[in-house]
């Protein structure tokens, strides 16, 4: 018994040591970013790891060089609209794939999943030509459109829908609800933790999205925060202090969304593997 207890204690030490290292690895970049926002560029380069006094200076540089309200509005607008549309369209598709049987369902579904394997870089030029033909270059619609039917989110909703009780649907039918009413009035409220998890995933992906907005947005007043930060960091001698202010500000919304919906996120993730 004693040797068993020792063994157990030893293994929990190993586990906690491992978790500790992992936690440090995830927290360190964040800490470094926050500290960097208070230091001058040359201190950041020297690797100074304590808080400095340049927060105000860095913030002034950032806000004079960047039209922050407009840029954040662009990012917020794109992210919120894309997230709402993605959740609506992709959850509908996921629900449909699971609930309604048809002869081609599985083939279609497999085909859709295959698109996950095409790297975005390969789609970029055709997509850009398409947007050019539609006259949507340099518009925010062009950023939103390609994300709204997300194969991954459809997959995620289909998997989660497997846990949606058929009895509920049958009962709703008996009560005379139409199909669209079942979806909006029964399915959506029941699956809210799934929606919450998907919301976080889509929100973060769109908020942080980089390559496609970069390619399709052409002017200073349509740019998103990720593009602006990237441009600030590209210089013969970049002002890393100002860059850090930008990254801190850009991180806040995702942090906020995550903490606000953390509980539902975990529930949603658990739900999908039931």
């Amino acid at each position: 018994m004693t040797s068993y207890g020792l063994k157990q204690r030893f293994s929990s030490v190993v586990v906690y040591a491992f978790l500790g290292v992992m936690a440090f690895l995830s927290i360190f970049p964040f800490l470094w970013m926050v500290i960097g926002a208070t230091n001058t560029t040359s201190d950041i380069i020297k690797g100074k790891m304590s808080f400095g006094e340049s927060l105000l200076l860095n913030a002034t540089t950032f806000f004079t060089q960047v039209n922050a309200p407009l840029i954040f509005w662009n990012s917020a607008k794109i992210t919120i609209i894309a997230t709402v549309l993605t959740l609506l369209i992709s959850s509908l598709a996921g629900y449909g794939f699971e609930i309604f049987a048809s002869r081609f369902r599985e083939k279609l579904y497999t085909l859709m999943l295959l698109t996950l394997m095409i790297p975005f870089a390969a789609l970029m030029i055709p997509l850009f030509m398409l947007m050019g033909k539609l006259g949507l270059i340099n518009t925010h619609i062009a950023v939103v459109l390609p994300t709204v039917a997300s194969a991954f989110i459809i997959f995620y909703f289909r998997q989660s829908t497997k846990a949606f009780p058929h009895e509920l649907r049958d009962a709703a039918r008996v009560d005379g609800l139409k199909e669209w009413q079942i979806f909006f009035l029964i399915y959506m409220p029941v699956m809210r933790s799934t929606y919450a998890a998907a919301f976080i995933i889509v929100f973060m992906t769109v908020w942080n999205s980089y390559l496609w907005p970069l390619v399709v947005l052409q002017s200073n007043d349509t740019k998103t925060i990720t593009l602006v930060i990237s441009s600030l960091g590209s210089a013969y001698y970049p002002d890393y202090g100002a860059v850090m202010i930008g990254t801190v500000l850009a991180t806040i919304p995702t942090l906020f969304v995550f903490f606000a919906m953390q509980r539902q996120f975990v529930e949603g993730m658990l739900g999908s593997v039931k």
Partner: protein
Amino acid sequence: MNRKTAALAFAGASLFAITAAQAAEITVWCWDPNFNVAIMKEAGEIYAKTHPDFKLNVVDFAKVDLEQKLQTGLASGVADGMPDIVLIEDYGAQKYLQSFPDSFAPLSDKVDYSGFAPYKVALATLDDKVYSMPFDSGVTGFYYRKDLLSQAGFQPADLQDLTWDKYIEIAKVVEEKTGKKMLAYDPNDAGLTRIIMQSAGGWYFDKDGNLSIEGNTALKAALEVIQKIQTSKIFRPAAGWADWVGAFTGGEVASVTTGVWITGTVKSQPEQSGNWGIAPIPKLEIEGATHYSNLGGSSWYVLSASAAKDEAIDFLNEIYAKDVDFYQKILVDRGAVGSLLAAREGEAYKSSDPFFGGEPIWQTFSDWLSKVPSVNYGTFTNEVDSVVAAHQPELANGTSVDDVIKAIDEQAQTLVQ
């Protein structure tokens, strides 16, 4: 359900502001908000004084981002939303000119190129036509700490005509006397190799743009120097750009050999004022070797699909090819050294800098600028460069230069085909 979705989508769409490009405006893409962007805006303001209708819209992206966008735009053939003027790094110039023929407007009919540093003109020439408005130069210098070198027994006069062998000897003395390494060096970066190679008129490509690795005397001599630097341990290892900059701004090493654009960074440490000097970079001992080279730099290009092409060319020509005062202003405000040789006649270029002990460093750099050997940067400079960088560390463990060159050649051959 469909109606609701459609209603939501419509509500979303109405929030979008559609920004269409305006025809009367010149749009410029470039990187670096404090340098290229600020300088281009300055140029626009000067031009607007004599051309009241002129409107300039400078859009800034990171360099890699801009290249990504330019590549996508040109490859897809969608002219929509493309700029009128774009900044391209000199190393990539031939790649764009050759990969997208007719996408850039030749400027040789409009611009007098005789006033520019010849190497800047040569790198943007294709089939006897010149496509660029030469902009900032990366003319190189050997920046050294006067205090440390004099402590080791070397005065500025001793440093004006060095060879790389002499440089390494000095480095050993400096370390012995001061405890500081001579330079910070990142074995995974081939910048120094390129500097040394171009100083002898060589490049990864020959004059006709063909890959030239084996049998390239300048490259071989450059790698021999790199091997000596690595094996004689005269350097403080640097991991990446920031660490490299930190080494010389932080006073850990006695010198730095790089492009003139580093001047602002060197000067960012006011407490070191008066302690720095510049000298020509050391020279190889092969035929064609000089004390002058280049690292980086970029030039402006006009897209031939531009609706305002003529205006864009006139703008570039009036300011960048003629306005000496403009070059004084960007030198003082931004530390930018342009490629127009006449700029040296201005006040700012003649002034002396107390940070460098009162030396007229801009006159000096301007002299060197006119003497940088012209080379053909070819179409795959960045690709071959990464191969060279990957093989450089092998030089430290005694692999012979010939073997390393052979390995580089094999790998580069497959890349450029």
